[in-house]
């Protein structure tokens, strides 16, 4: 079946009930998206489908409608997405395992809510777990990214 990931079309020969996460990592070798729990409890596998955050471990690839963006397609090392730049500025990552999911969740959220309150940020980001406990830096980085995207 054909799927579009980061602007590129791929033809993958997989079972339609294979989770998108497996396709991304094992078939397309896009390993920036992480496997955490496999049951939508941790958020590590978050990608965008037509710009909206989705847990890729829950999406059967046969039911996929829309274009996928992974952390590899959000920005580039020389042209970081505002959320990625804020992550660097605040030195958010500790072990880093959950961070691509955190960044994808934040980027999708700021598309629809460019001026979030702390409560808004906590509501969105509470579903993305970080075992290193980088939550205070995540919140600050989201606020910095929001201001950057607003042109402040």
């Amino acid at each position: 079946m054909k799927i579009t990931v980061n602007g590129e079309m791929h033809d993958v020969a997989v079972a339609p009930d294979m989770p998108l996460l497996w396709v991304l990592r094992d078939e397309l070798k896009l390993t920036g998206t992480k496997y955490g729990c496999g049951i939508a409890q941790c958020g590590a596998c978050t990608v965008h489908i037509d710009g909206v955050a989705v847990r890729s471990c829950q999406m059967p690839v046969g039911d996929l409608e829309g274009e996928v963006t992974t952390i590899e397609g959000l920005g580039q090392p020389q042209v970081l997405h505002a959320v990625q730049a804020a992550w660097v500025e605040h030195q958010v990552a500790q072990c880093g395992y959950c961070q691509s999911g955190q960044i994808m969740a934040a980027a999708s959220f700021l598309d629809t809510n460019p001026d979030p309150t702390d409560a808004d940020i906590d509501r969105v980001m509470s579903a993305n777990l970080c075992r290193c406990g980088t939550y205070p830096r995540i919140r600050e980085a989201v606020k910095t990214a929001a201001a950057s995207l607003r042109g402040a």
Partner: protein
Amino acid sequence: MRRLITVTGLLLSGAALASDGHGLVIKTPPVGSVSRTDGLQAWEKIHAVVSHPRCVNCHTDEQNLPMWSGPEYADVRPHGMNIHAGESRIGAETLTCQTCHVTSTRPNTVPRAAPHTGMEWRLAPAEFLWFGVDGRTICEQIRDPERNGGRDGAGLVEHITHDAEKKGFITWGFDPGAGREPAPGGMQAHLDDMIVWVAAEMPCPE
């Protein structure tokens, strides 16, 4: 609209028909053959369904919080992960329900994963309040077009057949999969009960 007219016609005429779209049999009793007692008995079975945790957990009030209750949970509490569905009831203000609850008609097979249906995951409208509400109050809400999405009796029947076509939330409630306790009965029995209750002019317990 065509389907609504068809269902209305069946309710008037008395018939049994299987529609190829939803796979259910519409067994309509002849006009005048259903007593109020029959209707109340049918309501009790409908109530057993709509008061089940599979249904009430997403029929919550204007606080817009989905609930976690039922035998799968140690206690009754709001959905974990600080989830708030917002006034949109789909989480559009912060985190959409569909971020985790994808739209798929495939069976739910993975324990403790986010369940999915063929309809986009969301809370029911706040006026369809079932969580923590007694049966009589639910009954009066369901028969009130002002508070049931503008549905008359035929509309309530069509609501079930439409859900069966889409493999939506009602269908999922009877077949939640992955170790979750289903609502009692099944889609056909629920449809049968709804038709009887509607034919009895939707009586509610006193």
